[in-house]
């Protein structure tokens, strides 16, 4: 039977999932192998160096940079309090008249004092960075000083694009049909701290309302490009996201514009309504691709955690596909044939195609490059 490799996104009700939780700098791991953790639990922490405040002592004292050393009252490495004298000159004629002194505006530490520039760098106290488990699960590996690997059994959905970082909340369906648009009128205070699910699109006003009532996450089929620009204040040039501080995380399952959420994805979310859900909008469409994810932890025994081997999503007869380019963008279908020879499509491009039966019963041919395997 004809087969071909094709990229795909996972939508499954049962997967063994391993998540690395790594600190940005080396630090302390707070859990040990075998520990059961909740999404909210801290698993590792470290301290980022504090903010730095430069002060040009030479300018303030009115001396050349190489003379600053003579007037210093502190040394590099010294802990300082706000108001401490950093440097002081001897005043007029060395008699202490009209002395200039420079005091520290912050609590912290003297990082360095340069003889080349006469500049002192003061560093504020260190900033703690804490990494949470993000998913309920079991610690299966500890990477000393760096982080952990957590595994669980989950229902799992990979999105195509998202915004903002990791959140956890209860799953709440706000529409009954994957074609429905998620509008602001559907959002009320009962959505607070929830991960809400819409259908084909989420509107700008709905996102703003969601932020207002304290929704944690939004899962939807499509979003308008201009709405993202309005929310962020800038256009996304390259799809590297996840660092935004929007007040809500957004995960798009299908693409830009109004596109019906795949039935399979919608039904899966519906089945797990009310369940605790971890999700994030982090997307990177370049080397080392990152896709946004919805993770709904399931009950499991340790013995269940046997991951199936990673495999290539294959196109073959019977494979369920999503059309990812016009015509029929967003429509789900089933592969019915994979002819070998090249075909000419409307744009006169000669491509390899596949034959498919779409959800609506229509039979069609589609360039193989324009479908995505829906992985199970």
């Amino acid at each position, binding site marked *: 039977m004809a087969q071909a490799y094709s990229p795909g996104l996972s939508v499954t009700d049962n997967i063994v999932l391993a998540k690395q939780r790594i600190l940005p700098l080396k630090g302390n791991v707070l859990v040990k192998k075998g520990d059961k953790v909740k999404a909210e639990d801290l698993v590792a922490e470290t301290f980022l160096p504090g903010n730095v405040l430069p002060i040009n002592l030479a300018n303030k004292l009115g001396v050349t940079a190489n003379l600053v050393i003579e007037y210093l009252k502190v040394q590099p490495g010294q802990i300082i309090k706000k108001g401490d004298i950093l440097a002081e000159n001897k005043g007029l004629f060395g008699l202490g008249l009209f002395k200039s002194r420079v005091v520290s505006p912050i609590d912290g530490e003297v990082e360095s004092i340069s003889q080349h*520039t006469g500049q002192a760098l003061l560093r504020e106290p260190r900033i703690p960075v804490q990494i949470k488990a993000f998913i309920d699960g079991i610690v299966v590996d500890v990477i000393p000083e760096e982080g952990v690997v957590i595994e669980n059994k989950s229902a799992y959905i990979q999105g195509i694009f998202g915004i903002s970082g990791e959140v956890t909340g209860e799953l709440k369906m706000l529409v009954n049909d994957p074609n429905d648009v998620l509008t602001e009128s559907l959002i009320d205070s009962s959505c607070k701290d929830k991960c809400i699910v819409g259908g084909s699109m989420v509107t700008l006003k709905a996102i703003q309302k969601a932020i207002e009532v304290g929704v944690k996450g939004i899962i939807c089929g499509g979003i308008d490009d201009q709405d993202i620009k309005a929310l962020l204040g800038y256009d996304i040039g390259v799809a590297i996201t996840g660092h935004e501080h929007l007040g809500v995380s957004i995960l798009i399952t299908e693409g830009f514009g109004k596109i019906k959420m795949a039935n399979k994805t919608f039904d899966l979310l519906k089945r797990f309504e009310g369940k605790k859900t971890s999700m994030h909008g982090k997307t990177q469409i*370049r080397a080392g691709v990152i896709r946004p994810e919805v993770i709904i932890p399931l009950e499991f025994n340790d013995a269940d955690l046997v991951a199936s081997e990673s495999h290539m999503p294959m196109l073959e007869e019977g494979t369920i596909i999503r059309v990812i380019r016009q015509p029929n963008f967003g429509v789900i279908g089933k592969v019915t044939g994979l002819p070998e020879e090249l075909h000419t499509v409307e744009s006169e491009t000669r491509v390899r195609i596949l034959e498919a039966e779409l959800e609506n019963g229509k039979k069609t041919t589609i360039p193989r490059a324009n479908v995505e395997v829906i992985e199970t």
Partner: protein
Amino acid sequence: MSGEQLKRIIATDCGSTTTKAILIEYIEGEGYRQTIRGEAPTTVEAPLNDVTRGVVNAVQELQELARLKYKNENITFLHDGPSGEKEIKIPRDGDNGVDAYVSTSSAGGGLQMMVTGVVANMTGESAERAALGAGAIVMDVVASNDKRMNHEKIERIRELRPDMILMAGGVDGGTIKHVVEMAELVSAADPRPRLGTAYKLPIIFAGNQSATDAIKDTLADKVELIVTENIRPTLENENLGPARDKIHDLFMEHVMQQAPGYHKLMEWTRGPIDGKMTNIPIMPTPAAVGNIMKTIAQEEHIEVLGVDIGGATTDVFSVFTDEYIFNRTVSANLGMSYSISNVLASATLPNIIRWVPFDINESDLRNMIKNKMIRPTTIPALLEELILEQAIAKEALRLAFIQHKEFAVSLKGMQQTRDISQAFEQSTSGATIVNMMTLDLLVGSGGVLSHAPRRNQTVMMLIDAFLPEGITRLAVDSIFMMPHLGVLAEINPTAATEVFNKDCMIMLGTCVAPVGKIKPNLTALSAEITLPDGTVFKEDIPFGEVRLLPCELGKKAKAKLVPGKGLDIGAGKNETREVELDGGIVGIVLDTRGRNPFVLPSDNSRIPMLKKWMKEFKVYPEHILN
């Protein structure tokens, strides 16, 4: 090594979107030919996270097509390697395996850099030019006089997380205070690399050489400090070459290495050199294309401009002047898939829409562009979408060419002398050496140009984006083979040159374009052209028109070209030229739409005008242009 020994070679180019494989064979009586081509999506995505899987898939396709072509089921290029996974079989044993495998790679995405200088529009600008020229996205230019407070600069440097930093500042022997102060700010920010936590951030110092010791004192403990020559040794001199080379070295070491499976691929690329099986380094795609481009210019004694438009980046290469000065720029944020949204952001929507011969809903176009960004491997199946992609391509090419012209200002050895009076207004100073009037050959490459369903589309994209002046030959890399041949030339120049001449370059034709602007309806070009079949084309072509004359590949047409009053076709204003024009698979284009300036109408006449030109160019089926 003789041709008899090296009979079958596989070359791949692992692009950020697609892995393209070609089979080169030695055929008795013909020499080296490119015979079969296969491709597969590049597999740097989960769950595979291994670039070699895409290579195997592409080679698998080669194998299947080779079996069909030669009706020989025994042909195999792959075998099970020691780990049980499929890999390319080298050396060859009869029908099994190949004699050599070479590859280029541009997977790994773009290079993100931050640059610093002392004076923003002097050393800051020089550093930016060096970084841009080396293919980076410049995330920010931090300079002593950029009006931000020092603590703001520190915060900015900390939050950026670039792949590397280029620090410039100060002329040699000048004051070191400001450049050291900048180093202190960088040190205080303690910047971290974008990818990985295990290595130190590379910082290239290319500033006042007298400050080197102080810079080392300030930074050497915290970062991987590389010191190179000053990019601005004196106020009047710019020396970007050494810094740019260092950026390229670090790009290979740090960014390309992040492409998953890259280490494995490096072990696979092997071939016999002087009879000994040797590992052949993977070449970055643009470097390989540059190799081939330089060869064309030098062998034919011509000025060449080449472009390779990919999914993430657009590279422009040029060889100009009698001294064959080679310049290359990589516009890391202009491409047709991963970076397509950046093309929209940089070019703006009106500039894209101006090339579209029908009305379109702006919101639909924006969403289409974003959808291409998040699903970069899709292809336009509908004619309207093809036209839109080609409109976007024209803008990506135009912008990449602007960047190239701004960069290609150097004299030989990348030393550029500026007049002291120009030193304070760099943006407008530094005349480009790119001269479209003296350019002989414009070569297009990359998916959107090489795979356009009609070659006429390639011609129109090249002309609209680059606006060649006077008389210019146009060519396209037939199936995007230049990177493969560029790397193949490293081990077997004979094979590379033979395939290049026979199978790679397709001459599209010649463009004749008078320079200047006159009123519409006035004659812009009086052409009398004797075509190879003896027919004579004679017309006084008004300003604002296009004509396409068929002239077979390999044939020449005799032309007498008289420019309209005040116009120039290369011999000076109003001067007649009698020349031979090269034919090609598209033919000879007479373009009187004007140059310097070339202006598209912005009123209601735009769409009818575009349709008229497009009909003449025969770029799209008639029904969409009626």
